[in-house]
C-alpha cells in the first residue's frame, strides 16, 4: 500500500493522527498532515483505510499496487 497526502486541502483536524500515530503526524508550525512513511507496513493498513475515511477534507488517498 502506498499513501499520499495533500497538504493544500488538509485542515489539520488531526483525525489521521488519532487513528494511527505511527503513520501520521502534524507539522508543528503549520498543523497540516505529515506522513512518517508513504508505504505503511501491512499491520497499519486497516488503520490507514480508517484514516482516509475519517479525513474531513479528503486530503488522504491510497494508491493500491
Amino acid at each position, binding site marked *: 500500500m502506498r499513501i499520499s497526502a495533500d497538504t493544500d*486541502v488538509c*485542515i*489539520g*483536524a*488531526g*483525525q489521521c*493522527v*488519532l*487513528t494511527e*500515530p505511527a503513520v501520521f*503526524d*502534524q*507539522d*508543528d*508550525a*503549520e*498543523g*497540516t498532515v505529515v506522513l512518517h512513511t508513504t508505504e505503511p507496513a501491512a499491520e497499519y493498513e486497516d488503520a490507514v483505510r*480508517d484514516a482516509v*475515511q*475519517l479525513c*474531513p*477534507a*479528503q486530503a488522504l488517498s491510497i494508491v493500491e499496487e
Partner: protein
Amino acid sequence: MTAPDVPAFPMNRTCPFDAPPEYAELRGTRPVVSAQLPGDQRTWLLTRHEDVRAALADPALSSNRRNPGFPLRAFGVRPPADFPQPMIGLDGAAHSAARRPVISEFSVPRVHALRPRIQQIVDEAIDTLLAAGQPADLVRYLSLPVPSLVICELLGVPYADHEFFQSRSARLVNRAVDPDERMAAATEVREYLDGLVTEKEREPGDDLLGRQILRARADGTEDHGGLVSLAFLLLIAGHETTANMISLGTLALLTHPDQLGLVRDDPATTPLAVEELLRYFSIVDSGTARVAVADTEIGGQPIAAGEGVIALGLAANRDPQVFERPDDLDVTRGARHHVAFGFGPHQCLGQNLARAELTIVFDTLLRRVPTLALAGGVEDIPTKQDATIYGCYELPVTW
C-alpha cells in the same frame, strides 16, 4: 403516516437522551425532505449519515450566513452586514486563508502539550465543587469554568483577569439570562479582547494571540480587528459547547451505571467513551446549515442554487446504517465516524481540545468523586430543548 407533507423545523427533543422522534421517521421515509422554517423560508433537511457527510463536503454548498437563502433556525437573526464575517461563514480559498494560520494551535501534539495545564484547571474546579456543599450545581462549578479557563490559557489572558473573563463569558452563554444583559456581557467581552489584543501587539507572548501576531507581521497581514474577531469566535465556539458536553456527559454516565463502571474501571476506555457521548448527544445538530450557490445533488435529490440545506448531525449520528442500536449509549463502540464535529473543510477547529477537556474531566471526576450522584430525578433537570446548542441549564449533584 400522520406527518404533514411539509414538516415544520425546528423539531424538539422530547426526552433528554433521544433525538426528536421525527428524525427516525424522516430518515426512513423521506431522507432528503423540504421543510418549513419559522418565517417564510423553506429548507432541505438531511437525516442520513451518508448524505450529511456528502453535503458538508460539497463545494456547491456555502456557509455564508448573509446569503438570503441560508436557512435560519430562528426567524430574523441574520448577522448584520457590518459585522466582520468570522471563518465559520467563509467558503473555499477565503475560508482556508482564515483557518490555515490557526490550525497548528489545535493539532493533536499541541493539545497534548496542554494536558497538564487542563488537568490542573479541572482539579481546581473539582476542589471548588466539593467545597460548595451539597447539593452543588455541576454546571456552575465544573462545566462552565473549565472551558472558560482553558480558553484563558490558550489566548494568554493574565491570571488577574480570569475572574472577570469567566463571569462575563458565563453570562454571555447563559440563555436563562435576559437578552439585554447577555448583549451587554458580549460587548464587555469584545472590549476586553480588543484590549488584550492591543497588549499582545505591544508585547507578543508565547500564546495563541502572540504567535498569530508574529506570524501576521512576518506575512505582512496584520489585522487587529480580525484577531479580536478570531478570539471572540474561539470563546463562543469553545465555551458553551464544551460546557454542555461536560454536563450532558456526566448526566448520561450517572444514569447509565453499567457504562459509568466501564469508564471508571479502565481509563483506557475514556477516549472512546468521549466519542460515543459526542455522537449520542450531537449537541450542535442543526448548526451545520448551508446554502447552495450552484445546482447540486444530495442523496439523489437535485438541490437548486439558492436553496437552503440543514445537515442534521444528530439524525446522522443515530443512523442505524452506520451505528448499530443507535439509540443505545455504548461507550465501547467505535463511534469515531460520528459527525458531531461536522465534516468537510469546516469540521470543528477545536475538536482535539474538546476531546482532551472531556477526557480529563470524566477521568478525574469519576476517580476523585466515586460517590457522585444526581441530586434529583432526570425529569427535574432543566434541558435546553429548543436552543441551537443542546445542553442543560443546571445539574445538581451530591456525593
